[in-house]
């Protein structure tokens, strides 16, 4: 049962424009959300996280927005750079959920930033 869904397998964006990656979740007990970036042959690299008590968190070019009522979060990358081309994973956890401390991942979105 996939509790975290990334419905866009791929996304192509021009360099300098905004990249928006989306993520939906089904478990209302999730209260902590993370985004990871993964290059081929490497492990996931932590990008940014957000707690359910917030609706926005920024770190440089990366901003994560959380809409709890819609059970939806998004990652905005502005401006996008060719080096951002990677697979992006959304993950969620919640100590009160049926998965406890474990991270529940989506299947990932492959972002391609073209010059």
């Amino acid at each position, binding site marked *: 049962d996939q509790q975290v869904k990334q419905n866009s397998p791929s996304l192509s964006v021009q360099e300098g424009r905004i990249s928006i990656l989306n993520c939906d979740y089904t478990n209302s007990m999730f209260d902590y959300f993370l985004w990871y970036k993964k290059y081929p042959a490497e*492990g996931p*690299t*932590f990008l940014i996280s957000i707690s359910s008590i917030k609706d926005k968190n920024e770190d440089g070019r990366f901003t994560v927005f959380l809409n709890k009522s819609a059970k939806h979060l998004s990652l905005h990358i502005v401006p996008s750079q060719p080096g951002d081309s990677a697979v992006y994973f959304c993950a969620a*956890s919640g*100590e009160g959920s049926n998965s406890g*401390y*474990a991270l529940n991942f989506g299947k990932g979105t492959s972002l391609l930033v073209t010059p």
Partner: protein
Amino acid sequence: DAGVTQSPTHLIKTRGQQVTLRCSPKSGHDTVSWYQQALGQGPQFIFQYYEEEERQRGNFPDRFSGHQFPNYSSELNVNALLLGDSALYLCASSLGVRSSGNTIYFGEGSWLTVV
């Protein structure tokens, strides 16, 4: 500051064999979790170790077992390998078992191919 290190990087095993994968957490971290990532999927939680005990387990059979040593490093053992066990095995480390508010770091993974 050493990050999460895993070994071996790649290995090939035959069906029915046993495999041991190793992980050293990031310096200062005391909790290790293991994830399995099949091709085209997001990582799936296997189990978490803290204070040398398995604290939480995902939906994986008993063929998957683990251990944590006093220096916080960990091993993942898989017995009676099946073709379906072919995947990237990721080790994640953190300080404490809680995920909320925690930054969870991943190693580069061990690629296991079962033939």
